């Protein structure tokens, strides 16, 4: 869906290039997370896709169009754009904010009205209550929900998101990440997502592109990056606890057996991941836990050995 080929950018006051011959291929419906230390060029790369920054060399193809050949204004109207500070227009109502791109595209008022209400519901806000409110009346989390709704308004196939949840407190951030993943599941969008938070990257990304000093260091699924970091830099970047992070990608469901658990076993949610399960078991010094479903019914047992085994199997399968 999006193909970057040998993309480069050097800024006037920069000694080294901000982005250095970057090549990347993003499939339709994927979330590609760009991550790396400060100054690695991830935001610049993202901003070249909608030409908020003009590339020095290389090509960017979105869909089947070479982005550098299209009028930038028209291009941007077909790409959703969400930034960290949201940038809601303070002098417009929520409804007017969301309606921005549809209005630029000439939709009629009835269409726009319907779309605004639809989107407000999708981001779990109340159209009747919120459409005529102003940005200053909203909390940080609500502002970013509106930001996402605004970006989705004209139903663009591609969305660019620059640390969209970075300005929020950890609890709000996590709930918005979940909601956003759920929304994306229902729609089929191709997303380029910039973050500096490796946990967010692992959570959100179909594939993660780790960048450093303008170059692409490793581009793969979260599991592979955690299991086989390409070099010492990536290894230290993903953190010394990468094994535990890998466990967070594995579900309890696939590793529990059907046997009845011992009486004093701690309860472990079936829908949870192995890392949380491990944490529960360790905290009470148990060697196995009772797997329960949403209704509280016991469905099986999860043992420490099984957890260790899951890890090893995965590792084995890769070799």
């Amino acid at each position, binding site marked *: 869906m999006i193909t970057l080929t040998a993309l480069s950018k050097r800024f006037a006051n920069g000694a080294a290039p901000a982005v250095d011959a970057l090549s990347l291929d993003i499939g339709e419906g994927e979330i590609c997370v760009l991550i790396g230390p400060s100054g690695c060029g991830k935001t610049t790369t993202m901003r070249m896709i*909608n030409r*908020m920054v003009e590339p020095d060399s290389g090509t960017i193809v979105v869909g089947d169009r070479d982005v550098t050949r299209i009028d930038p*204004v*028209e*291009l*941007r*109207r*077909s*790409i959703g*754009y969400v*930034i*960290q*500070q*949201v*940038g*809601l*227009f*303070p*002098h*417009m*109502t929520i409804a007017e904010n969301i309606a*921005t*791109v549809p209005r*630029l595209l000439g939709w009629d008022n009835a269409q726009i009205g319907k779309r605004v209400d639809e989107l407000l519901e999708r981001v779990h806000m109340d159209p009747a209550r919120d459409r005529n409110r*102003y*940005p*200053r009346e909203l909390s940080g989390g609500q502002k970013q929900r509106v*930001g996402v709704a*605004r*970006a989705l308004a004209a139903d663009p196939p591609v969305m*660019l998101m620059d640390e969209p949840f970075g300005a929020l407190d950890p609890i709000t951030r996590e709930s918005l990440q979940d909601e956003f993943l759920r929304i994306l599941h229902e729609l089929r969008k191709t997303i380029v997502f910039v973050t500096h938070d490796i946990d967010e990257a692992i959570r959100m990304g179909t594939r993660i592109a780790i960048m450093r000093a303008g170059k692409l260091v490793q581009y793969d699924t979260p599991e592979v990056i955690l299991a086989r970091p390409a070099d010492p830099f990536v290894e230290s970047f993903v953190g010394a606890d990468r094994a535990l992070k890998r466990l967070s990608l594995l579900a309890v469901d696939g590793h529990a057996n059907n046997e009845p658990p011992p009486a004093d076993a701690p309860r472990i949610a079936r829908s949870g991941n192995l890392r949380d399960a491990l944490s529960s078991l360790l905290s009470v010094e148990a060697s196995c836990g009772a797997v329960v479903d949403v209704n509280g019914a016991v469905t099986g047992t999860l043992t420490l050995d099984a957890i260790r085994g899951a890890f090893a199997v995965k590792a084995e399968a890769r070799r």
Partner: protein
Amino acid sequence: MLADAWRYIETHPTQFVTALGVHVALSACALAIAALIAIPLGIVAARRAGFALAAINAANIGRTLPSLAVLALVMPILGTGFAPSLVALTLLAVPPILTNTIAGIIGVERDVVDAAHGMGMTARDVLHRIEIPIATPIVFAGLRTSAVQVVSGAVLAAFIGGGGLGDFITAGIAMMAVPLLLVGAIPVTLLSLGADYLFGTLERRLTPQGLRAE
């Protein structure tokens, strides 16, 4: 004294109305021309940091110049009368409008402008739909300051033959006739308060709802 002043107006209606008319005309024209110069200039200057800084510095110096000095300096060059007074008053009116326009546009948060561009608004759209509406209250605050200054300055135009209500004041002082002096001083004070009130109301009305401090 007040009664005498009122009687004077009753017995010299044309003189009074003419002076009032000239005063309002001088003030309104100076303000309008100053706005037509300063607002576009401010919008252009706001885009370039160096230009903006130079403009603000120049405007600040302009604001410190004593009004009467500016009016007096114009006289040897342009002579006396309505037009030279208008030129001087326009010069005096420009700085507050210019500074406020620049501050207003620069004050629009960068993220808001970035989001607007990123969503596909043309530069013109961004200016007309985002930057100008958000900057409007601040620009009008500048117009308000200028308006009051101009009405006050127009009083001084009497010294260089510009006409206006200042004529009554200067005549009153010269002849030590207090009623005559009041015929000028009181109406012009009311005019000044009126202008302040008018622009204050406009400022409030034109502040977009989303920006009103609650």
